[in-house]
C-alpha cells in the first residue's frame, strides 16, 4: 500500500528530493486530474525513495503537505474526509504501528503501548524513554485515582524508576503516593485533565511533542504555518492601522489611507488656548483642558462624532492637565499651581477638591487600582492621596525645573516615571525601590508612556523626540524629528493599531505623524491656526486622532475614507475649513452646544 515509510531516516529523503525537484514539471500537483484514468483504477505508485514536490517553487514536499492537510481535517472533526484523503492520496497519516500505538494509548492499554512504542523504530533511545515515561506516568496516576496505591507503587518502582530519566519527577510521583489529596491528584492531572478520556487525549498530545514529527504529525501544524505567513505579512505592512483581521485570500497590505489625515471635526467650545487633551481608556470620551479655566468632557457617539457632554467649571486658574481614572468613570483636572479636582464623568459634578494650603499642584495621575492618586506640587514634593482627600504619603522629588511637570504611573502601579533634573528622568520602582535614570543631552520638555509600559516617548528642547525602551535598559531605540518647538511645551503620544505610530504637536500649527519602528515621517496635518500643544490618539479606534491648539479648537482627524453623517458648523470665531452642515434638523441646537453649554 502506498504510503509513508516512517522508519526511513529523514536525511535519505532530503537528499533524493534535491535531485527530484529539478526534473519534475510544475503541474505535478495532487489533484485528481493527475490520474486521467480516474480513481477507479489502481492508485498511482508512490515514487519509491524519491521525493515529490508541489508548489510553484518546488520546495513543498508532497507527502508532508498531504499529511498535514489530513491531520487538519481530523482535528477539525472531519473524520470521513480525513479518511477519504488518506485513501485517495495513498499517503497515510500514520503508519500502522503508530496507529496501533495511538489506539492503545486511548484505550489505556499501557503495557502494550510501551511494547508498541519500542516497535516504532525510533532511533534516539532518549526519546523512547521520555515517551515511555509519559505513558507510565499516566498509568501511575490512573492507578492512584482508582485507589490502587500498591499498584501505583509497583509501577513506580519496577517500571518508571528503572527508565533512569526525569529523576525529579520520579520523586514527586513518590510523594504523591501518600499525599493523595484530591487536590494533589488534580495537580498531578492538571496537565492531563481530570477524567480519563480527555486526559488520555492530552497524553497523546504530549507524546506528539516528544516523538519526532515524521512519526506523529504535530497538532495544528497547518494552522501554525498559516499564522507564520500572516505574521510576516502583518510585519511587512508599513501603514498597518486597522483592527480587522487579515484575510487568507489576498496578501495583506495597508495603504497610507489608513492613517488619520483629514479633519473630520473641529470642536470650538473653549474660549481660550487648549493645552491638554486625552481620550479615555475605553475610547468613548475625550477630555480637554484649557487656558479658559475650564475642562470639557466630550462623548464619542456611534458615528464617531464628538459631542460635548459636560463643561467642568470651578478652577480659578487655567487647567493644564487631565487624567482619566482606570475605569473611566472619573476625571482629575489640575489647575496651574492650584488645586486638583475630581469629577464624576456621568454627571459632571465635582466630587472632591484636593488642596494643600500655601502650595499649588502642577500635575496629577491615578494609580491603577483607582483608589489613590499621585500629585506633584510646586515645591517639588510628590503626594499620594486616597480618594477622600486623606494624604497617604509625601516625599520630596528632585525636580529642579518648572518647565516640565510630567509624571506618570505604570500600569501595574509599581513604576513611577518623573522628571529628575532638566535632562534626566527618574524611573522609580515602588516595590523594589530600584531607581534607574534616563539621561538626555538636552532639556526634556514632556514625556509619555506606551500602553504596555515598556517604552517612554521623550520630547526634547531641541525639537527631537526620543523613544526609550524602559523595560530593558533603559536604552534609546529611536528618534523622531521634523516638528517645530521653540517656546512652549509640546506633547506627543503613541497611537494607532498596536501603537505603531507616534504623533506630536508642533509650533508650526501642524500635527506630525511618524512610523514608530522606522522613524520615518509619514504625515504632516495642516489645519490649525496656532501652535498644536497636545495630541491624543483614540486607544480603541486607531483611525481617530485628536489635536489641541492655541487657536482655541480641538481637531478630530480620521482616515481618508472616513466620513461623518453630520459635520459641525463652528461659531464665527473658529475656522472650519469650509465644511458645511448638510442641513440636519439638529443643526441649530448644535451650534449652541458647541459654544459651551454644560449639558447636551
Amino acid at each position, binding site marked *: 500500500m502506498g504510503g509513508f515509510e516512517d522508519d526511513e531516516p529523514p536525511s535519505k529523503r532530503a537528499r533524493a528530493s534535491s535531485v527530484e525537484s529539478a526534473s519534475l514539471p510544475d503541474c505535478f500537483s495532487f489533484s485528481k486530474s493527475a490520474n486521467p484514468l480516474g480513481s477507479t483504477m489502481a492508485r498511482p505508485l508512490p515514487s519509491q525513495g524519491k521525493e515529490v514536490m508541489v508548489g510553484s517553487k518546488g520546495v513543498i514536499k508532497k507527502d508532508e503537505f498531504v499529511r498535514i492537510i489530513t491531520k487538519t481535517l481530523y482535528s477539525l472533526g472531519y473524520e470521513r474526509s480525513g479518511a477519504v484523503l488518506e485513501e485517495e492520496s495513498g499517503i497515510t497519516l500514520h503508519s500502522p504501528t503508530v496507529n496501533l500505538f495511538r489506539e492503545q494509548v486511548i484505550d489505556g492499554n499501557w503495557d502494550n503501548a510501551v511494547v508498541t512504542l519500542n516497535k516504532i523504530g525510533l532511533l534516539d533511545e532518549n526519546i523512547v524513554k521520555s515517551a515511555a515515561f509519559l505513558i507510565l506516568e499516566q498509568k501511575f496516576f490512573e492507578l492512584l485515582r482508582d485507589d490502587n496505591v500498591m499498584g501505583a*507503587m509497583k509501577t*513506580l*518502582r519496577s517500571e518508571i*524508576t528503572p527508565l533512569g530519566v526525569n529523576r525529579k519527577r520520579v*520523586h514527586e510521583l*513518590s510523594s504523591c503516593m*501518600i499525599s493523595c489529596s484530591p487536590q494533589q491528584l488534580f495537580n498531578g492531572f492538571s496537565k492531563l485533565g481530570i477524567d480519563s478520556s480527555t486526559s488520555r487525549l492530552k497524553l497523546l498530545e504530549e507524546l506528539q511533542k516528544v516523538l519526532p514529527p515524521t512519526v506523529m504529525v504535530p497538532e495544528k501544524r497547518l494552522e501554525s504555518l498559516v499564522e507564520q505567513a500572516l505574521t510576516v505579512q502583518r510585519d511587512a505592512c508599513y501603514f498597518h492601522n486597522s483592527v480587522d483581521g487579515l484575510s487568507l485570500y489576498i496578501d495583506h497590505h495597508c495603504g497610507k489611507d489608513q492613517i488619520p489625515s483629514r479633519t473630520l471635526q473641529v470642536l470650538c467650545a473653549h474660549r481660550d488656548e487648549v493645552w491638554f487633551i486625552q481620550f479615555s481608556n475605553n475610547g468613548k470620551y475625550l477630555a480637554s483642558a484649557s487656558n479658559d479655566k475650564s475642562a470639557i468632557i466630550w462623548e464619542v457617539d456611534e458615528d464617531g462624532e464628538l459631542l460635548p457632554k459636560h463643561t467642568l467649571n470651578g478652577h480659578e486658574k487655567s487647567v493644564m492637565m487631565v487624567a482619566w481614572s482606570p475605569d473611566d468613570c472619573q476625571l482629575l483636572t489640575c489647575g496651574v499651581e492650584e488645586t486638583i479636582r475630581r469629577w464624576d464623568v456621568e454627571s459632571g459634578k465635582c466630587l472632591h477638591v484636593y488642596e494643600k494650603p500655601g502650595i499649588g499642584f502642577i500635575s496629577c495621575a491615578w494609580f491603577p487600582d483607582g483608589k489613590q492618586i499621585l500629585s506633584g506640587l510646586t515645591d517639588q514634593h510628590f503626594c499620594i492621596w486616597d480618594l477622600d482627600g486623606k494624604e497617604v504619603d509625601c516625599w520630596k522629588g528632585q525636580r529642579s525645573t518648572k518647565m516640565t511637570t510630567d509624571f506618570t504611573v505604570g500600569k501595574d502601579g509599581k513604576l513611577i516615571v518623573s522628571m529628575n533634573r532638566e535632562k534626566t528622568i527618574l524611573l522609580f520602582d515602588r516595590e523594589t525601590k530600584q531607581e534607574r535614570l534616563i539621561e538626555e543631552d538636552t532639556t526634556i520638555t514632556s514625556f509619555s508612556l506606551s500602553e504596555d509600559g515598556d517604552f517612554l516617548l521623550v520630547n526634547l528642547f531641541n525639537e527631537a523626540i526620543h523613544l526609550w525602551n524602559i523595560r530593558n535598559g533603559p536604552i534609546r531605540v529611536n528618534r523622531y524629528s521634523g516638528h517645530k518647538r521653540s517656546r512652549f511645551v509640546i506633547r506627543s503620544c503613541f497611537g494607532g493599531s498596536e501603537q505603531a505610530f507616534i504623533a506630536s504637536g508642533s509650533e508650526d500649527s501642524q500635527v506630525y505623524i511618524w512610523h514608530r519602528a522606522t522613524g520615518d515621517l509619514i504625515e504632516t496635518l495642516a489645519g490649525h491656526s496656532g501652535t498644536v500643544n497636545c495630541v491624543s490618539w483614540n486607544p480603541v479606534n486607531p483611525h481617530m486622532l485628536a489635536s489641541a491648539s492655541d487657536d482655541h479648537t480641538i481637531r478630530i482627524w480620521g482616515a481618508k475614507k472616513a466620513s461623518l453623517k453630520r459635520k459641525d458648523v463652528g461659531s464665527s470665531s473658529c475656522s472650519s475649513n469650509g465644511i458645511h452642515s448638510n442641513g440636519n434638523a439638529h443643526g441649530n441646537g448644535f451650534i449652541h452646544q458647541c459654544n459651551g453649554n454644560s449639558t447636551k
Partner: protein
Amino acid sequence: MVLSYLMHNCFKETAEAFLSSTGLKLPVDYSVNVDKRKAIFNFVLEGNALKAIELTEELAPNLLENDMDLHFDLLSLHFIELVRSRKFTEALEFGQKKLTSFGKVPKYVEKLEDFMALLAYEEPEKSPMFHLLSPEYRQNVADSLNRAVLGHANLPAYSSLERVVQQATVVRQYLQQEVGKDSYPPFSLKAFLSK
C-alpha cells in the same frame, strides 16, 4: 568537665570507672535518668524509633508534643527503617498514616519528599538519598533527641567539653579574620590530638 562529657553521652560504666580512679564525687544532677537516656540513645542508633519514642514519652512527657521537628525526625526514622528492611508496603502505609499530617507544613515538605522518594527505588542504597539510610544519620537523630531530653530536665544541651572545643574553634576563626590568614590556622581537634 570530662565527667560531664561522659555523663552527657551516657557512658555510664566509663564514668563509674573514672570516678573511682579520680576519687571525684558524682554530682547529683548527672546521674538522673542516665540509664533511661542511654537506652533511648541506643534504640535510635539501632533504628528502633518506635521504642525510643515510647521511652521518651515516659521519661519526658510532652517533649515530643512540643517539639514537632524532633517528633517528625523520629517518625521518619521508623519509616526509613522499614525501607531499609525492604518492607515497602508497610513503609507506604506508615507514611500514609503518620507522615501525611506533616505534609501540610511547608518546612517539612522538602524532607518528606526526600523520604518518600526512597520508595521509588528497588535498591534505596543506590538512590540519591542513600545517606538517609546511613548510621551517621541515625547518630544525628540520636544526638538531637539526647539534647532535647537533657534540655527538658534543665540540663545543658551540650557538654562543657564540647562547648570548650566550639569556643576554641570560633576564637581561632576570629583571630584569623582579624590578623590574617597565616598566623592562626583554624582549630582542628584532630590536629590537636595528633600533636
